[in-house]
């Protein structure tokens, strides 16, 4: 910043004195452009502070024990999001249970087994494509592909989201595998380990922080997702009453926090909407913090 001769003082010096190589020339265009650069950055920061501030200002007063532990009921006169919290947890767990092995397996194939060629290019291209497809398209696809069999259910939603977060996990695992030094591989293979043994005992543990980061990022995406779930997981908000219901819930409709937020918004229940928004932001902040800690603590490339 100091190199830019943009202060009024230097400008004045330039005008008064005869040209000297020690005085930097004042350029109006430089002044305007650097002003615009600072303004843009300030805008981005103020935007974040504004969004966070407003949501917490309106939302935090809404959060209470009742808000977090009850379900909406006109009979009891309560409004709470316990059901939606449970649905969100269900969808996160089921999605990760399916997507993590698939994504990690795919990354291992691409990085360790596949020989560079047409096949790898096709797989990488489709993975890219998959990450570029907007969530509303996943929603439509999930609705006709899984929904025709399973109806509006948590399982339908989770299967749809599996496709959506697969590229995220694959790419993060691939990046992590790439940072494992080649010498680890040749060392293990050299003392007689088989490839699968080497992957299991050397590669996966070394790449674990990267895989976990991918998983946490995926959780963030699932928590924030709405368009893909609206027509797949539906909008149920009740808590299961029995232990068997806990399992049966998977096949019943269940709206996540974002879906409930959207429904509150369209019904103009803004107080409840802000309460949910504040809860969501707290989760997002926590996830962000977690990825930061992980990537700084377990950076394989830095240890070496």
């Amino acid at each position, binding site marked *: 910043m100091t190199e830019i001769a943009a202060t009024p003082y230097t400008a004045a010096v330039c005008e008064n004195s005869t040209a000297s190589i020690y005085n930097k020339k004042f350029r109006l265009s*430089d002044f305007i452009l650097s002003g615009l650069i600072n303004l843009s950055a300030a805008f981005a*920061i103020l935007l974040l502070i504004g969004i966070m501030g407003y949501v917490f200002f309106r939302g935090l007063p809404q959060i209470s024990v009742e808000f977090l532990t009850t379900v909406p009921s006109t009979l009891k006169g309560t409004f709470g999001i316990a059901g939606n919290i449970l649905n969100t947890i269900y969808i996160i767990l089921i999605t990760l249970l399916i997507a993590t092995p698939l994504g990690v*397996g795919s990354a291992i194939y691409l990085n360790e087994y596949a020989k560079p060629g047409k096949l790898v290019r096709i797989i990488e291209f489709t993975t890219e494509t998959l990450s570029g497809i907007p969530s509303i398209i996943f929603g439509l696809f999930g609705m006709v592909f899984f929904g025709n069999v399973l109806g509006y259910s948590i399982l339908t939603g989770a299967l749809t989201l599996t*496709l959506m977060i697969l590229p995220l996990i694959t790419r993060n695992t691939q990046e992590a595998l790439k940072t494992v030094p080649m010498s680890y591989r040749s060392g293990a293979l050299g003392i007689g380990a088989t*490839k699968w043994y080497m992957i299991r005992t050397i590669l996966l543990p070394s790449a674990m922080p990267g895989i976990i980061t991918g998983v946490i990022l995926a959780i963030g995406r699932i928590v924030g997702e709405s368009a893909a779930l609206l027509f797949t997981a539906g909008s149920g908000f009740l808590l299961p009453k029995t232990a068997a219901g806990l399992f049966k819930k998977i096949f019943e409709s269940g709206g996540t926090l974002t879906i409930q937020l959207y429904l509150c*918004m369209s019904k103009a229940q803004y107080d409840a909407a*802000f309460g949910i928004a504040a809860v969501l932001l707290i989760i997002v902040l926590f996830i*962000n913090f977690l990825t930061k800690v992980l990537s700084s603590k377990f950076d394989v490339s830095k240890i070496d």
Partner: protein
Amino acid sequence: MNSIFRSKKAQSAVEKTAEIVFTVCAFFAVLAVLSITVYMFMNGTPALAEVGITEILFGSIWKPTASEPSFGIAWVILTSIVGTTLAILLGVPIGVLTAVFLAETAPPKLAAVVKPAIELLAGIPSVIYGLLGILLLCPAMYSLEQKIFKGSETHQFTGGANLISAVLVLAIMILPTVINISESALRAVPASLKSASYGLGASKIQTIFKVTIPAAKSGIISAIVLGVGRAIGEAMAISLVSGSSVNSPLPFNSVRFLTTAIVSEMGYASGLHRQMLFTIGLVLFIFIMIINLSLTRILKGGNKDD
């Protein structure tokens, strides 16, 4: 000690299985893209045949539930194109300049604060942007609307849910994408180029705009293309701030985007109307595929330059 031979055989079976399992995993992405493509076409084309492709693509009247239904989505397609273009025109300059700030001009300590903030901005769920849009943007737009169209008899008042509100929300939502990718492109520019520019007597700003940004061109273009993809595919954030009727994409009109038409009508649509919504989904899907393909083109071209 004959065990090593036997164990080798047993191990080779495990090895084979492992390899097959990983291969199957890798092909899952291919399978997913293939089935999404097939299903989008399977569900999107019946209405095309029934209503007629020209009437759908060029008809401007969208009355899916009338007794004599009309299914023209020309305005819907145009709204998505116009809305995305405007959002890009607004968001990209701010995004690229912020990337310049992060990569070039900011003191490292300040950049260390700004960068996580941008990442956080990317993590905020889209419905929250929509919520703030409704409560903050729309009232402001409504008072503006009342001032501009005071006494107008032809204007339909929208309560602030109009094209401008949607464009502003979209422009904000593409910022993190544009900033992050442009920043890494700017950082990848070799220092020698910049030193050469300084050596010739150029100022810092001149170097940034005449050397660094042109050198990072392919990266910045891919940031823009990704921004286009994000803007055109965004549904929930703008579904309530863009209004609820199909109109020509004029700034103060209540409009429907490709995405918001699907979100707001799928809940109650049935029969041909429902099929039509899948056709809209197909149009969106084709747009996205074109964007994806051009992105791979750009990235390939960029690699050749290196």
